[in-house]
């Protein structure tokens, strides 16, 4: 451990930079998907998502910490966004006019980091440093150390207000960029989100897409047994959103749900998901919010995700 000790005040982490090889394969995937027939597209996205889930298993295994359940419920959403929907260039992470993405449920950093790495923002081998001393890859996303991260998240209820600011910012700067933000469903219990939704609708932010990872579980239990969100569609609609309900593990449905706004205001996508999706013994079980798999479970998970 002391080997890595830095003097206070020095930059903490090796700066991460785009990875040319990975960037190339991401660009090839994007190009292929753009023209592919729907079934082929879905198959390719599923393959990419499996790769991300395997990466998450390895990261959490080696870090000994993480939030695997939520990582898996959001993986298909992240994959769809980065491999097909978002208009951005991982080779130039700060390019003006880029679409923005914020993972408001920042505890699912492993899934985001994997997605970013496979998109070429940095080399996938860096994923092995997840949560290690002085790593750029903290347990929650840090924009000052990870290219592609737009704002620091981790405390719930922060991403949506920042996304609202970015959506207003896009309009003010004459950009046609869209802003996507992924919220946990439990996260919606935070009042800051309802403040932000009210403003988003007042400002008719048709460039904002709020995606709710509706896995019906929060940290300790089911959302409806803790602090019910249903009727979530009515809540979101009454706060001015154009509500779309989607299967959060159906790539075609997600792509459809992410289409441009049709009613001149913010879009809210309720993506029905399964926490722990992809690994049989983790699916829809509260304890896998942040349980760490043992060696045998890691083996089995990787097998199921092969």
């Amino acid at each position, binding site marked *: 451990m002391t080997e890595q000790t830095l003097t206070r005040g020095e930059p903490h982490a090796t700066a991460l930079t785009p990875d040319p090889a990975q960037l190339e394969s991401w660009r090839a995937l994007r190009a292929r998907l753009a023209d592919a027939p729907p079934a082929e597209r879905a198959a390719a996205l599923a393959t990419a998502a499996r790769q991300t889930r395997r990466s998450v298993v390895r990261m959490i295994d080696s870090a000994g910490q993480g939030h695997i359940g939520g990582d898996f419920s959001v993986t298909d959403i992240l994959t769809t966004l980065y491999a097909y929907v978002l208009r951005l260039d991982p080779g130039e992470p700060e390019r003006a006019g880029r679409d923005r993405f914020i993972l408001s449920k920042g505890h699912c950093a492993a899934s985001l980091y994997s997605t970013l790495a496979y998109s070429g923002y940095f080399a996938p081998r860096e994923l092995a440093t997840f949560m290690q001393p002085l790593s750029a890859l903290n347990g929650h996303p840090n*924009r000052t150390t990870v290219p592609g991260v737009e*704002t*620091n998240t*981790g405390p719930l209820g*922060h991403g949506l207000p920042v996304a609202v600011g970015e959506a207003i910012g896009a309009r003010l700067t004459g950009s046609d960029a869209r802003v996507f933000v992924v919220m946990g469903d439990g996260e919606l219990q935070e*009042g800051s989100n309802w*403040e932000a939704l009210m403003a988003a609708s007042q400002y008719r932010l048709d460039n904002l897409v709020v995606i709710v990872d509706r896995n019906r579980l929060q940290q300790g239990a089911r959302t409806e047994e803790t602090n019910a969100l249903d009727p979530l569609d009515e809540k979101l609609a009454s706060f001015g959103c154009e509500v779309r309900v989607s299967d959060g593990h159906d790539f075609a449905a997600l792509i459809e749900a992410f289409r441009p706004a049709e009613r001149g205001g913010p879009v809210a996508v309720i993506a029905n998901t399964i926490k722990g999706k992809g690994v049989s013994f983790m699916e829809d079980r509260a304890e896998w919010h942040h349980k760490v798999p043992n060696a045998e479970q890691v083996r089995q998970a990787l097998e199921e995700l092969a």
Partner: protein
Amino acid sequence: MTIASAQEKTALPTYDNRTAFADELIALAREDERIVAVCNDSVGSSNLVAFRDEFPDRLINVGIAEQNMVGVGAGLAASGLVPFVCGAAPFLTGRSLEQVKADVAYSQHPVILCGMSPGMAYGQLGPTHHSVEDLSWLRALPGLDIVVPADRRQTRQAVRAAAAEPRPTFIRVGRHKVPDVTSESDVLERGRMLTARPGDDVTFIVTGTLVSRALEAADRLAGSGLRARVLNAAYIAPFDTDALASAARETRAIVTAEEANVAGGLGAAVASHVGTLEREARVPLRILGLTEFAPTGNTDFLLEYFGLTAAGLAEAAREALAHD
């Protein structure tokens, strides 16, 4: 600069710094289209009416929702704009502190947080409306500049500096009327205190509303042949430990005064550094400020109640010098 005598001073006109703030913001907005303002139903109290009239699209009023306000500020900064996020200081800081921490200081989004009507400016509206914890609250956040302009000129300079090189910044924009205490040659420099008056017996390190009161206290002490140095701590963070160390070495006592709770503000910053200096520089300290929630009363009454007056400062200086 100097202010001749207490008598003269009393006659000086006083100003609400929000006017200078608004004027400068508008001037800047004319030059630089990245400048936007954000507020929480506080168009009037943040003095943004003229700004809104001239730049209707560039005033974002998010309603009564401070957490969202700070998040929106961060998002605007992330879009390449320079947001001045304006709200009554107690709510801008207290209600959104975790947003200030995560979205501004830790994320390093260059948001300019403008805490309007700080300290006890809201007088008889009571402790819920007093922003006297803000310095303690914000000093604990690394990477956030904290500026407390003492008059109109410094308010303008603070606004201009923030726009020129945007970084996470909190500016305390005073409402309680104060006289001008700086002159044209006084330039606000990041992390520097200004010497409002030289002196080598005792030092007042003061901020905001207290600067003019310290100058008056210095006048009073001059009557007893005591030369008081007055340092205007316009930057609470980064803090000017050089000027502090010089004061500790060159004068025999230090009195700090702030319109804030003493727990973690200016006084605590001074004490924490003086304690690390060599023996001769560890001069006696008196730290003036709030130690309890204020009772009912207008701002002047409350400043008097907490001893934050020229008489209170002079008395503290004498006492520190005498009892050492």
